[in-house]
């Protein structure tokens, strides 16, 4: 997957680059409006990460340009403004998703992959991990060809794990992925634990291996070994 990061904060770009370097994502970065415009006109990207507050222009204008020349490119807006107007306008202009700063890198990864799947395969994707198969089109989940039934949150959790496989995920990150702004509960970690417990039970009951590894004092990691 080829991604263009349009963001003026150097360190943030470095974070994203470093995080994605372990996956199959190729990142390029543009630091300002002019550079981003050049790159968008010259190259083809699968997804553009777009900060709409740029030092020399409004990122929404880049979005307009992109939708004119390459409407098939996915766009994920990252903004610190949390302004509803911008969000609505961005989505109306054809952005696929909107993420407010600060975001977790696994969350960014999950959203990016979701856009990529939708754009590239029109949603007809089957994600595989070990003996688990997830059809993101029909939302069906199979363990060794046995269908298992998951609740919405369990499904979201499994998808989040698969897109962030082999990465350490804290309970905080998982809680915010599942409940967004409502995750600010003292006991949201207990809630995460309960969902994990149920998901684990359902997978192993269908004969699957226990992929959810507990990292003591931190959280979880989804891996085969």
């Amino acid at each position, binding site marked *: 997957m080829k991604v263009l990061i349009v963001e003026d904060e150097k360190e*943030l770009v470095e974070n994203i680059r470093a995080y994605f370097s372990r996956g199959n994502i190729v990142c390029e970065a543009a630091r300002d409006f002019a550079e981003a415009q050049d790159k968008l006109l010259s190259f083809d990207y699968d997804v553009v990460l777009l900060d709409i507050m740029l030092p020399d222009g409004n990122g929404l204008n880049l979005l307009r340009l992109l939708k004119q020349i390459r409407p098939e490119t996915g766009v994920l807006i990252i903004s*610190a403004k949390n302004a509803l107007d911008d969000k609505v306008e961005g989505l109306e202009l054809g952005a696929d998703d909107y993420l407010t700063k600060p975001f977790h890198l696994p969350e960014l990864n999950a959203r990016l992959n979701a856009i990529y799947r939708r754009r590239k395969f029109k949603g007809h994707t089957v994600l595989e991990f070990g003996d688990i198969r997830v059809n993101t089109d029909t939302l069906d989940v199979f363990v060794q060809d046995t269908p298992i039934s998951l609740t919405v*949150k369990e499904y979201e959790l499994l998808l989040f794990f698969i897109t962030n496989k082999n990465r350490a995920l804290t309970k905080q990150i998982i809680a915010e992925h599942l*409940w967004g702004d409502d995750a600010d509960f003292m006991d949201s970690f207990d809630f995460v634990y309960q969902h994990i417990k149920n998901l684990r039970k359902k997978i192993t009951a269908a004969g699957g291996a226990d992929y959810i590894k507990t990292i003591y004092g931190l959280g979880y990691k989804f891996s085969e070994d």
Partner: protein
Amino acid sequence: MNLITKTTLFYLLVALLVFGIGGVVAYMLVENEVRKETDFALYDNLSQLTKDVADSIPLDILRRGKVDIAELGPATRDTFFVFSDTLAPHPHLQGVMEPYRKLTAVRQVGDQYYRFSITDVIIETDDIYEVVVEIMLRLFLILGVAMLFFSFLVTRLLFRPFQKTLEQIRAFRLKESGALQLPETTTREFRQLNTFLTQMAAKARRDYLAVKEFSENASHEIQTPLAVAQGKLELLLESPGLSGEQLGQVQAIQQSLSKLSRLGKALQLLAKIDNQEFAVQAPIDFSRITEASLSNFAELAALKNLRLSSRIEPNVRLSVDPVLADMLISNLLKNAIRHNEEGGWIEVELNREHFRVRNPGKTPQAPVEQLFERFKKSHASDGSLGLGLAIVKKIADVSQFTVDYEFAEGIHQLTVRFS
């Protein structure tokens, strides 16, 4: 009562006063004039009689009903004349006395002295009074009708630009960019008013945008470094060989950053509400928003083993911003889940009068009246920001709702009343 009606009534009141005083003055003037004219006629009559006597017309002929002449003889005496008021019987009506003006004079004609006494009917003061009152009443009536017509005309013509200005101000919205279109007028006061209003509107809009931009920029400047720090921590988690203790510390930093970020967002939200960036709009279906929010929180309540029951009256429509409405409900539900007890319950009630959330829980440690203040928490140790109820209060304030909190027999009850 509008300005013109008030002015008209005021003018009429003043007119009433003026006509009252005018009536008294008119009465006095008329009475004085009548007396003078009567006296003049009597004196004229006296001169004529004196001449007649000098022309040797016999006194018997000159003596009539109102004239009496007496011969006083040649002995020298003072000549004089004096007017006086007297009463005499009415010539036709029996037993009715009438006021008369009487001229008594002593005159020398030749070498004889005569005493003349002439009386004449004077116009009664009652009659003068009646006439004056009649005139005043009619004038007042004409004036009243004229004033009504005048006020109608003024409202229709003169005040048209003012009413247009009022309409424009009523339609003015800070959030929209359209300029204030005030009507052209030749009236100086209205022109001044319009200039002033145009300036005020422009200033209000500038201030609004400045505050909006500031809070957005501040948010950007705070959240971006937080995003950088959070990313660094996540990368750190990926690095091999961290001990359990180190991982725990990283997670603690992560939680603090997350709290800081939420704090920034909550304060920005309060600033936005203060800046009236959420305008009250057309009525929305509050029942639907409540139902949606309830289904969102049903899972969280279930995870905490809480029984969630609700009585939602359908189709409760309220004029409130939908984003704020959702925030109000979810803040209260979040609160009810957080400050609950093991195996407890939550009761949500919505009807046309109020939205109410009830749940059992510990006695709040802070005084009840402080709960809606920023950063006041009922239990110091919990992980919340202490802004939830402050936001609820603020949303209620801008939406013209009232919130009250009661705690009795181990049950928290929060009520948002729609007035």
